[in-house]
């Protein structure tokens, strides 16, 4: 893969409700932040990829609302419906094709304006599953149970993730939900769908984000702190939950192997310094860590309990506070990329981890992490 860099990033604050800002306002804010970060004007953006979802926005052709705000006027533009990591992947390919020197990728979400449960229920097949009333939390509970049963992972193991990530969020000014928690407090929070408790689940959020990608040639003119895309891949598992072994992370393993191989990484445990992954629920952080190869299957809880994934650990995971501390869907994956970029540039403020040279960002689509996208980013090509 020819070198492509992230040259600008922008995140709005994630909040439970940003009533004063419509979708377009949020996107405009994020795009302006990314342009300012890159020191670019919109004229220097060659093309745009927007990310949105018609269900969450309550609009057919949801990208129509933000065409003015994203600055796509008289530019090539397209729309990915899915997590921001997938939208950014498309933006990357448009540069690799040689057609464009720079791509602006933006994503928006206002969870405050709709009913999350009804919308995630619509992920399920209308003939065989939807009328059962299953949605994101209840389906994830089935996965959490399968995973915990298989490996003997406990609810306390999962609670540690909540304590860590909500704690990290205090250092992140755009995070929505910094909380000072103990494992006991997480364990005492009420069950939503066993084994998932309120404090195992991400909040509902409003927010938007934008990143600007550039070819090596253009990046050299734009910034002296480019962050390079070293590898990226995605993979999708079977659809019906009963077709999958929900405790298995084969799609993530496949995507990770491919991304690592592109990046020339043979041992992620030694060669990756930081991870930002899609922790919509606490157990997911453990499972995804295993799928990404940072420990053996079933050892995610042990790794977390050892302190290795803490801000000052060997492999800090979600120093930003993760999705547990702010989860504008779709935006969430783009935020994982942005957090890695800030860390690699040394611009992560109070949440900065020392000596980050390579980082992994991760996003998901579909129920129970059916489809995973893995990015390896680095300060050097």
């Amino acid at each position: 893969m020819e070198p492509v860099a992230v040259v600008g990033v922008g995140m709005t604050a994630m909040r439970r409700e940003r009533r004063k800002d419509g979708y377009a306002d949020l996107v405009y804010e994020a795009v302006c932040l990314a342009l300012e970060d890159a020191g670019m004007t919109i004229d220097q953006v060659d093309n745009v990829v927007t990310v949105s979802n018609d269900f969450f926005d309550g609009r057919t052709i949801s990208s129509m609302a933000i065409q003015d705000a994203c600055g796509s006027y008289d530019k090539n533009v397209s729309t990915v419906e899915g997590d921001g990591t997938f939208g950014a992947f498309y933006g990357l390919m448009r540069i690799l094709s040689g057609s464009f020197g720079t791509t602006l990728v933006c994503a928006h979400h206002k969870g405050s304006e709709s009913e999350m449960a009804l919308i995630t229920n619509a992920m399920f097949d209308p003939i065989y599953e939807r009328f059962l009333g299953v949605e994101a939390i209840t389906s994830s509970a089935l996965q959490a149970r399968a995973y915990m049963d298989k490996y003997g992972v406990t609810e306390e193991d999962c609670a540690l993730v909540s304590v860590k990530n909500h704690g990290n969020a205090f250092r992140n000014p755009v995070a929505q939900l910094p909380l000072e928690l103990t494992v006991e407090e997480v364990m005492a929070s009420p069950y939503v769908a066993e084994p998932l408790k309120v404090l195992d689940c991400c909040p509902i959020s409003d927010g938007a984000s934008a990143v600007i990608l550039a070819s090596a040639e253009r990046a050299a003119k734009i910034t002296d702190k480019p962050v390079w895309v070293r590898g990226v891949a995605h993979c999708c598992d079977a659809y019906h939950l009963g077709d999958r072994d929900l405790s298995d992370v084969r799609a993530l393993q496949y995507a990770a192997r491919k991304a690592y191989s592109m990046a020339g990484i043979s041992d992620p445990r030694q060669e990756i310094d930081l991870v930002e992954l899609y922790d919509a629920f606490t157990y997911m952080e453990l499972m995804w860590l295993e799928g990404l190869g940072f420990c053996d299957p079933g050892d995610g809880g042990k790794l977390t309990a050892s302190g290795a994934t803490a801000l000052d650990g060997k492999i800090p995971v979600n120093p930003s506070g993760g999705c547990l501390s702010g989860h504008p869907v779709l935006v969430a994956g783009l935020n994982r990329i942005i957090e890695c970029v800030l860390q690699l540039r040394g611009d992560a403020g109070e949440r900065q981890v020392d000596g980050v040279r390579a980082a992994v960002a991760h996003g998901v689509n579909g129920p129970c992490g059916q489809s995973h996208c893995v990015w390896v980013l680095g300060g050097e090509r």
Partner: protein
Amino acid sequence: MGKRVAVVGVGMTKQRSSRPDVNGQELINEAVRAALEDAGISRRDIDAVVIGNMDHFEGINYVDTWSVDGSGALMKPIMKLTTGGTTGTTVAMAAYYHVASGLFDRVLAVGWEKNSESDTTGAIITAFDPFWDRPIFAGAVAGLALEATQYMHLTGATEEDAAYVAVRERRHALNNPFAHLHINLTIEDVMNSPYLSWPVKMGDMCPRTDGACAVVFASEDVVEEFPNKPAWILAVADRHLWAYTSDPYVNQAIENGWWFPALEWSAREVYDKVGIKDPLKEIDVAELYLPYSFAGLRYMESLGFCERGGGPDLVRSGATDMGGECPVNPSGGVMSSNAIGATGLLRVAECALQIQGRAGDRQVPDVKIALATGFGGCFWSDVLLMGREMPEKPRG
């Protein structure tokens, strides 16, 4: 530098008013298996899948992950794109960029819709802003009628001129076994059909259709593996300007001479990339997303096939009929089949068949260059130029 990209396989379902015999995944699968068979490969040879439709027409969220049983994406990368009516061409362009990036050699593009399963107009109304447009706006037909009256006012075009296009599209569809409508219409039939929103009549509009289309895209490195001759993508471009219903009618655009900037700018971009100077002469066949008859007049001008206001005369001259200078929509086009998410991709598939000389009774002789367009959103446009000869160098 990027890779050159060709279409090497095409699959489409018969386009029908309703397909209750299959669920959505099975409809998709029908087109996917046809495309794989046409390309002489199996699901295992595919490196990535790109899929698109319009969510509220079937009410299924995350269609990419839902589609896996049908789209063949099990344990493969799959990405969903959606841009309204342009979805099918957007999907084709995404498949193009997947391959052009050098990351994937064989990519399957899938567009589909089961419009029989919902209220199409009810879903389309939700495309518009809930504060400013939605309480007032009555769906796609009304928006098109605004365009038609503006066009008639600016050019003096008549309803009969538009009816000529409506008749041509349906006549062409008689040659296409996959088309939804097989009806022999006269200009009188169209003129006598009831008004939906003046001046647009029933006979001027596209139908609602169930259908799917799948297309295999391959890189220059692997095209030799496939039995079909490659149909090369020469250039792609799009403009998705604007957000509100009334934006396309701003005076500034008209005063600046841009009547339909999204299509004019996209077309100009692909012509410049390929070096097309006289599109009517140099393009051998066009498969255009004409959602209704008046578009068949106005787009001729936007695409540079004739001067401003020359659409009616060009069309009535027979230049866009089979046997004419540049036949438009030998397949019967959108006015004969409109499974919305599939529609744009069908334009690309039809262009590929024409270039490969495999279009059967709808074949235009000796097609070297073909033009496909998509229309949707807020008067948005996608344009793809395809050709028989491999481009000298990769270009976007």
